[in-house]
């Protein structure tokens, strides 16, 4: 059950490039599960009009953390919110996602898509796992601050940090060497589509974390619909109600 509550900014930091780390204190604990998100809105402001969804990076009691990129007007304004400012919070939202049982996991994240993985770290202590995280350059690579160095491969397009190149470029080699039981990927749609194509020739099942423009967050408006296979046909599923994580083979990716 979601609720509308006030959340005050405790701290906000520019981690690197356009990436910000926001720490909020909610009026009451959300008790969210991994895979769930919140919507934040700027009270009293009609433009931007819609609240924006944010993955819950971490939650402890009433304190929750969000990591996001400044992309447009909303996130631009949000990044300027300082200590004490009250935001409107709606959540927790979405269907929880618990990792399917496996011995080894490969997590592939592009940009702030990797935010999704952070809440699974405590569940991975006795597992073989590898994080393959990519960004444009070293100035936009926020992950070194948060992910365990020993099992993280960093990739930058210009080679300024970690391996040079793109995630899809290194993906087949990493798969071959690591042999994961399960792959979870989160990032831009173009990346997910490319990995879905590449992994169709591999053995391990690929799970994708999807995003769509969202309005209500609770299944009223049917805005955040994706197309999934159903029997011989297809149907639309709302990410806000049915969950953000899908097996790549279930999803019919839209063109272009």
């Amino acid at each position, binding site marked *: 059950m979601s609720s509308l509550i006030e959340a005050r900014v405790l701290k906000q930091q520019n981690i690197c490039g356009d990436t910000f780390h926001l720490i909020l204190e909610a009026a009451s604990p959300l008790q969210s599960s991994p895979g769930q998100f919140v919507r934040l809105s700027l009270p009293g402001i009609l433009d931007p009009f819609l609240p924006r969804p944010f993955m819950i990076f971490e939650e402890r009691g009433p304190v929750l953390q969000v990591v996001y990129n400044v992309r447009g007007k909303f996130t631009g304004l949000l990044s300027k919110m300082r200590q004490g400012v009250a935001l409107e919070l709606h959540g927790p939202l979405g269907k929880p996602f618990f990792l399917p049982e496996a011995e080894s996991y490969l997590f592939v994240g592009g940009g702030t898509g990797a935010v999704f993985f952070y809440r699974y770290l405590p569940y991975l202590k006795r597992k073989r796992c590898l994080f393959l995280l990519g960004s444009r350059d070293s100035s936009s690579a926020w992950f070194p601050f948060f992910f365990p160095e020993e099992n993280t491969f960093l990739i930058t397009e210009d080679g300024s940090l970690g391996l040079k190149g793109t995630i899809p470029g290194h993906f087949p080699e990493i798969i071959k060497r690591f042999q994961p039981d399960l792959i979870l990927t989160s990032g831009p749609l173009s990346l997910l589509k490319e990995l879905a194509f590449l992994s169709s020739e591999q053995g391990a099942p690929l799970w994708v974390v999807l995003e769509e423009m969202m*309005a209500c967050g609770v299944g*009223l408006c049917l805005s955040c619909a994706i197309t999934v296979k159903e029997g011989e046909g297809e149907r639309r599923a709302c990410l806000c109600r049915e969950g953000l994580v899908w097996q790549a083979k279930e999803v019919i990716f839209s063109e272009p």
Partner: protein
Amino acid sequence: MIILNPVMVASGTYGWGEEASELIDLDKLGAFVTKTITLRPRLGNPPPRICETPSGLLNSIGLQNEGIECFLKKGLPIFERFTVPLIVSIAGESVEEFLKLAEALENQPKVKALEVNVSCPNVKKGMLFGTSPDLTAELVSRLRKAFSRTIIVKLTPNAPDITAVARAAEREGADVLSLVNTFLGMAIDVRTRHSRLSTVFGGLSGPAIKPLALRYVWEVFRAVKIPIIGMGGITCGQDALEFILAGATAVAVGSASFRRYDAPLKVLEELVLLMEELKIESLAQVKGSFIYE
């Protein structure tokens, strides 16, 4: 149809009841208007289905719904637990489709009114009827014979002359008019040069359209005698009162529910406080009392 308070939800913004009943006490609403139901199930348009524009949003959902049969089986029973007047929004591609829907709902006493959606901008033939006074007249006159309770006709601001459509609906027996549906609009992604929606056009809603919607309510109010449900960008009690002063008997809250699901109830609370402040005893007394000369 009797409503106990003047604030309802706008069709398409509050689902069919299942999700909504988990969010608020539906009985606190003046009426519940379902998302539009069609004869057969519709997949709706592919993503992306919405994009935000200044103080509003464009949507192109495409009337996704599971069809009338499924609604009667799964949707309607939800309302047995509630006393809120239920208004079912219907859309068809032909007079016959509309008639079949009306006939199916005529036998359902829980359905207090039909809202005839002749104004959806996001499907083929969605606005066919609503942009033509003649087609609206024919449709309403046929529906009048098929449905004995309240018929509401939802008007589109994309009609060349909305007052002509309004008068045609009134003449053929519509009991209530609701307006406005969304304004046809578009948005282009300058990097890809594609539409920001999966379709070329979408329907614009939200505070951006409020002054436009208010003007249409006022013009239609002056053209007809039947009650009007006013809507378009209402986010607070003051907005609601503006529509009532322009001639609306009741109002509907739409996109504001996407910001806060309890927006309709907040609008109602604020409207009551505003009435006290302005010493308005009844909304009927001030309806259409806009001073313009």
